[in-house]
């Protein structure tokens, strides 16, 4: 009896599991598939043809319309997003790593207090910060500049939290000791020894911060009026709001949405190995 039931049970549950996962996969992928199909259609076919099947393949026309509309403002937005996200995440990862490393490896008074302040920072909703930041920045005159979006983006309390955990897990005390015995200063030790051991973790922190900045919308919306400074998210949001008056914008909103997603998806697939190991070590406390 006990020899037969498990196999039958497992065959049933195997089929059920696969069916459930296929349904969920359709749920997750269908909107993306719809977007791809819609981005290849001429505006006129959007409403008149079925959304999940291709009609005329006009992707390249749509792309050229997208990038030439309003003197090529979309290209500017894309460039802005890249600047905010790449620079912001790079600087943010470096300062998070320095801080997290110090919190993991140096013993000093107030260390746990500083760490709890940072953890408290993780819990603070960033949208609640945006309005007071706007008031402070307008007092100093950097509202409506690149800095207004860039500067707050480099701060990632979650990045420091991860950097501390990763350092504790990946940088053994003995290696640091031997570097110090060889006469290397703390910075030298950090940059030439610890950073190498931390590289996979730093890629993870960079990725998370990159996505957070790339996806950010509320902060730029509060800070920026000048269209030429907008990131993609804010630009497309603005276009989307105009589609009622200018229906021809709809195709550009769709094609633009696709363009804004593709680089991040490629980045994810290329760097899969990193975020997977990163998340795994992040979950071990």
């Amino acid at each position, binding site marked *: 009896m006990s020899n037969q039931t498990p196999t039958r*049970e*497992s065959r049933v549950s*195997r089929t059920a*599991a*696969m069916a*459930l*996962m296929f349904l*969920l*996969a359709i749920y*997750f*992928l269908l*909107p*993306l598939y*719809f977007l791809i199909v819609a981005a290849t259609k001429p505006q006129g076919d959007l409403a008149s043809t*079925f*959304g*999940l099947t291709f009609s005329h393949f006009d992707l390249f026309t749509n792309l050229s319309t997208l990038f030439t509309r309003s003197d090529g403002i979309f290209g500017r937005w894309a460039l802005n997003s890249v600047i905010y996200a790449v620079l912001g995440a790079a600087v943010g990862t*470096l300062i*998070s790593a*320095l*801080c997290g*490393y*110090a919190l993991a490896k*140096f013993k*000093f*008074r*107030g260390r746990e207090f*500083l760490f709890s302040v940072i953890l408290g*920072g993780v*819990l*603070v*909703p*960033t*949208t*609640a*910060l945006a*309005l*007071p930041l706007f*008031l*402070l920045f307008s007092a100093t005159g950097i509202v409506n500049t690149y800095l207004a979006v860039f*500067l*707050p983006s480099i*701060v990632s*309390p979650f990045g420091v939290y991860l950097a501390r955990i990763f350092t504790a897990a990946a940088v053994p005390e003995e290696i640091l000791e031997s570097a*110090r015995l060889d006469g290397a*200063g*703390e910075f030298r030790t950090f940059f030439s020894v610890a950073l190498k051991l931390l590289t996979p973790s730093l890629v993870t922190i960079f990725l998370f911060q990159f996505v957070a900045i*790339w996806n950010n*919308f509320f902060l730029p919306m509060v800070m920026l009026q000048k269209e030429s400074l907008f990131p993609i998210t*804010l630009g*497309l949001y603005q276009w989307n709001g105009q589609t009622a008056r200018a229906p021809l914008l709809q195709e550009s909103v769709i094609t633009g*949405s696709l363009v*804004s*997603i593709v680089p991040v998806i490629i*980045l*994810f697939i290329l760097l899969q190995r990193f975020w997977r190991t990163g998340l*795994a070590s992040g*979950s*071990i*406390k």
Partner: protein
Amino acid sequence: MTDTATRATRVVATPGGRSRHNGGGPRAGTIAAFLIPFFLPFVLFYLVPIAYAIWQSFLVVRRTGGQYGTSYTTFGGFEQYVQVFQNTEFWNSIGRIGLFGIVQVPVMLFIALIIALLLDTPLLKLKAFFRIAAFMPYAVPGVIAAIMWSFLYSPQLSPLVDLLKAIGLQPDFLGPGAVLWSAANVSTWLWTGYNMLIMFSALQAIPQELYEAAKLDGASNWAIAWRIKVPIIAPSIILTTVFSIIGTLQLYAEPAVLRQISSNISSTFTPNMLAYAVASGNNYQQAAAISVVIAVITFVLSFGFMRLTSKRAGL
């Protein structure tokens, strides 16, 4: 900052300065050099705005001599907070977001947990594909996700509406009763995979030997999943719950986009939308008070949830 640095000097500095034995360590100046690049912007762009918002929330703008007199700003005590709590739109937005969170967060985390558990069993094939499929939406900005779904909700463009009509239904995703759940669906779509991945990573860290004994005792896959795996990854489930609570209270982009196509979303639909609307009306002190209240509620809920669950798990 300096305070910490000087205190650190006092404690850390040992005779010989850079000796690393018996509680020695790098000099306070070196430690500070590691910490300051993060803490300086953290203080400027996190702590100072919080302090500034709190300060602003205690101010009121008054006028001398009636409606056309000159205005001046003065200390108003809790006046702004009284106004926030008397504002029905504020309570409506809190009620909406509360309803949203009570339904959306458990549904999303339950789906995430099921996927994580299935990916961790030998039952499933094509695991890499399913994992990436679920995680893919995380790469999509909230605004873009909402724009995509708004096309899927719109009666003119949506293939979903076409399909549902073909089987005789008349869906109205943007109607007054449905629009909150249409927004909830966007959040669920966006974040399930992210939460799943955190849980899945925790599952993978469990040593396989733990299951051997249970299997020898004849425990089914279900029993192993619910009685062994879920309790072990409880910390990750708590973490994802806390992040979801924070995310729910911050909700802005998704309803703001749906508002562009649905008249059933007001400009004060969520607390954050209300704060933004009030700030746009130049009432910064009131907007600051709303922001402070949102932050306090977030903090109390997420911190309270962590305390509650860790106590239960710890005892």
